[in-house]
């Protein structure tokens, strides 16, 4: 025991760099490079605002990821509650003083860029719950108190984010939290019961939705009911993807995107553009790249000795997975349109920041996978 501790504590900088997960690292770099090229295409084959900004963000956030990785996983464990609490404070601050844009208030200006705290919450909630379940005795997992506490941890930020309003992100936060409950060992029947309750109460929930959100659901069910209005985005997205065919229309030749038929092509619909230009082969390739990343994160989780690292890695892997699934299902017309970015690919600093921090902690877990946390 002693020896282990000593070894871990005295690990040198070069050893840390050597212990990074290079498959994960290379995959992330590859994804970043692809994302810059796709952003270049959304700018119409020119290095304009979006391409520049996206590139600068990658240049800043990639070293940040390495920097996060250099901290011992124990450090992240120790500060998890604090980080969660700080992000909650940011959410509170935003709900009072945030920047308003297109009907919602979810951003804060931190001078060098505009921060969206709800994106950070996606990571913070995983850290917080991972720490909670790491410390919780297995006997108490299904106790009333613990379940009440974890549900509060999940729903407090969720409610803040819903009220911004930002349904998409709040669902993703809630799902990221719930997955830790699942991994932590909450009884399966509880999940089943709450799912049934959710289904029953669905009509009530829908009645509380804002009119535009209801419209999105109706549009999802039948996009052709208003092809130039609410259904426009999803119809155009399907046309773009479908017209890509096996090998796509070619780089910078996506007519749907460069003739402006595609809405939100920088952010939520970035995959549509990619898929139009690179076709089925490119799309599946991108999915494989994401699958490798997810698989590497799970692997790091499974070799980690501490439960905190395990829970975080599995939770984060699931979160990445769910972001991808929600985003792709949306652009492929399998789910209603909820604003949700595609990790790394989509334009948006906060989302990229959160994802990079997540990768950083995963890499920290890799470097310190033998570390036990009391």
């Amino acid at each position: 025991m002693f020896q282990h501790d000593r070894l871990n504590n005295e690990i040198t900088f070069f050893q840390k760099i050597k212990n990074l997960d290079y498959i994960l690292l290379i995959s992330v770099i590859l994804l970043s490079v692809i994302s810059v090229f796709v952003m270049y295409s959304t700018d119409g084959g020119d290095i304009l605002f979006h391409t520049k900004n996206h590139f600068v963000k990658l240049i800043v956030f990639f070293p940040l990821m390495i920097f996060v990785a250099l901290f011992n996983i124990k450090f992240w464990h120790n500060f998890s509650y604090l980080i969660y609490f700080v992000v909650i404070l940011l959410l509170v601050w935003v709900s009072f003083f945030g920047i308003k844009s297109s009907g919602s208030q979810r951003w804060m200006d931190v001078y060098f860029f505009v921060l969206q705290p709800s994106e950070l919450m996606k990571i913070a909630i995983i850290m917080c719950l991972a720490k909670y379940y790491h410390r919780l005795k297995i006997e108490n997992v299904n106790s009333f108190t613990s379940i009440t506490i974890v549900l509060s941890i999940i729903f407090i930020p969720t409610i803040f984010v819903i009220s911004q309003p930002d349904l998409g992100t709040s669902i993703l936060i809630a799902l990221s939290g719930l997955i830790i409950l699942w991994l932590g060992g909450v009884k399966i029947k509880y999940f089943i019961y709450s799912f049934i309750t959710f289904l029953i109460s669905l009509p009530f929930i829908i009645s509380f939705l804002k009119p535009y959100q209801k419209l999105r659901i109706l549009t999802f069910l039948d996009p052709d009911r208003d092809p130039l209005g609410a259904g426009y985005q999803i119809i155009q997205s399907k046309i773009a993807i479908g017209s890509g065919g096996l090998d796509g229309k070619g780089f910078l030749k996506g007519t749907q995107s460069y003739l402006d038929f595609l809405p939100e092509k920088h952010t939520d619909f970035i995959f549509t553009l990619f898929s139009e230009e690179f076709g089925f082969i490119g799309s599946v390739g991108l999915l494989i790249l994401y699958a490798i990343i997810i698989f590497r994160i799970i692997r790091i989780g499974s070799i980690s000795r501490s439960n905190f690292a395990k829970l975080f890695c599995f939770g984060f892997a699931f979160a990445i997975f769910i972001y991808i699934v929600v985003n792709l299902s949306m652009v492929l017309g399998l789910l209603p349109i909820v604003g949700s970015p595609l990790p790394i690919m989509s334009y948006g600093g906060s989302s990229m920041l959160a994802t990079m921090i997540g990768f950083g902690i995963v890499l920290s877990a890799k470097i310190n996978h033998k570390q036990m946390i009391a």
Partner: protein
Amino acid sequence: MIKSNSGIRKTDVINRRMFIIGAAKVVVFAAIVARLFSLQINENKKYLTLSDKNRIREWKLPPTRGNIVDYFGNVIAGNLKVYQLHIIPEQVENFNYLLVRLKKLLNLSDKKITRINKLKAELKPWDSIIVSENLSWSQFVKINNYLYDLVGIKPVMTISRNYPFKDVYTHVLGYVSQPNEQEILDNQIIQERFVPGMKIGKLGLEKRLENYLIGTNAIQRYEVNAYGKRINQLEHQKGEQGSKIRLTVDTEIQKACAELLNEKAGSISVMDIYTGDIIAMYSSPSYDPNLFLFGISQDEWQLIRNNPLKPLINKTLSGLYSPGSTIKPIVALSALENKVIDTKFKVKCTGKMELYGQTFHCWKEKGHGWVSLKNAMKQSCDTYFYEVARLLGVDRLNITAEKFGLGKKVLGQYFENEKKGLFPNTKWKKNNLGKGWVLGETLITGIGQGYIQSTPLQLCMMTAQIANGGYKIKPKIIVDSNPVSYEDAKQSMESGLLFDTNSETLLDKKLFKDKKNIKIVQEAMFSSTNERFGTSYKSRIDDPKYQFAGKTGTAQVKRISKRERELDLELEQIPYKDRDHALYVAYGPYINPRYALSIIVEHGGSGSKAAAPIAKKLFKLIIDRHELREQQSNFERITI
């Protein structure tokens, strides 16, 4: 170690649950790949089409109308390059400044400026506004000189309809102008090919032959963005000019007709007595169809509309006149055919005829004395024809008259405004007026007055059918068409519009019982023009090459009162509206005749003074042109 134990257990739980999720992830990813496969591989074609539909938009350009040419290939309705001025609002730096400059350069009216501003508000910034549809060359040059200062304007060359002979052919061709909504809806071809700025036929042959003349649109395909802005041109597909239509008319003769009727109201028709070709068909006064191309001004329109000589009416086809004495050849023929009279039959004319207490006057107060058919026709004795009509009866006369085309449309399907006129009989009066026929009405029908109404073209055809020996002809104004496709050709055959489908043998077209009777009438008409005391003797031509036979007519427009008869006023003393219409029908040359004509001068006075002299001038030209025409007919089916 309890903690450590429970830790191990917890790890197991986490790993087991992770495995379940991992399996779920694989399933979900597979589902997404399946969806991608279905969209991109299975339905690729469908979405590719949709994507092209999104990005490719077609712009139709106005089609070029087919030319209409006369028998000799002279273009009588053609196309002309015109210079237009467009503004492209998005390229303009200062719109108001530009308008001020243009207003000065082109003398635009304030109304026009307001219209341009209104258009600018309505159209997309990249859609061009047409400032002027028809710039003169000097204006075009001026604009080009100042182009550096007029940012955002575009001088454009385009094609417009043109009628080189101006008012000469208006009543034949009609004119083209902007279609209204109803006209677009009514014609599917126009609907398909319509583009703003396109002109369609509004009247006459231009309207009737719209579907042949219209041509197909040139199509430009552009790639457009989501807002409809053109990004780049993909393809230019040339349109096909509409079919060329060749008419039977002769511009030289048509022009001569226009000159002869200058400042008079009336009509001249000339017809080939064998083929039925209409050589000329002029209604006077006429108006310039070119005025309608770019929208006629209110002043010009009022001038045409309010002209007392009624230029808007096509008198040849829709003017209804009493034929007057020009009907006498038919009355004579009918009587001969029905064996009511023979050449020896004589009537004593005392200047009037009494019937049931009513007096029927001959035009010659002193009377003609004893007259036979030949003399009666020569001097146009009314009394003789009163008596013949009385013996013949109106119903028998009606049969002969209708055989020769009176009371029926001549060109029917070509002109919408053609009228069929009226030749009465007893049954007609009973059905339409509810009264019985009176014998007195038979008498005045015998001299072409009363209910009887005919168009100048009917009289021309009637004369032609007497001249050709009494055979039925089918008048036509179109020689051949240049159908764009087999389908078009077939369709035109079926509608009988462009080709004469009449395949009857000459025998079936016989309009007489005894050929001798036709000859008698022809001789009587000859004497009327070429023998002393004939009503048109003064207008005769002695040269047998040009010699013609004819019959004058003077149609009363109102009943002549006793007082007026006694006054016997000179023409100038009678108010214009009350003067008689002057008519003349003729055919020539007398030996081997080929052409027939009818002339009407509204309120011209007597036929012998006002109408017959016109025929004299015209016949020379018609016969002189005959040889040229014959040569041309060898090339009948060749596209000119």
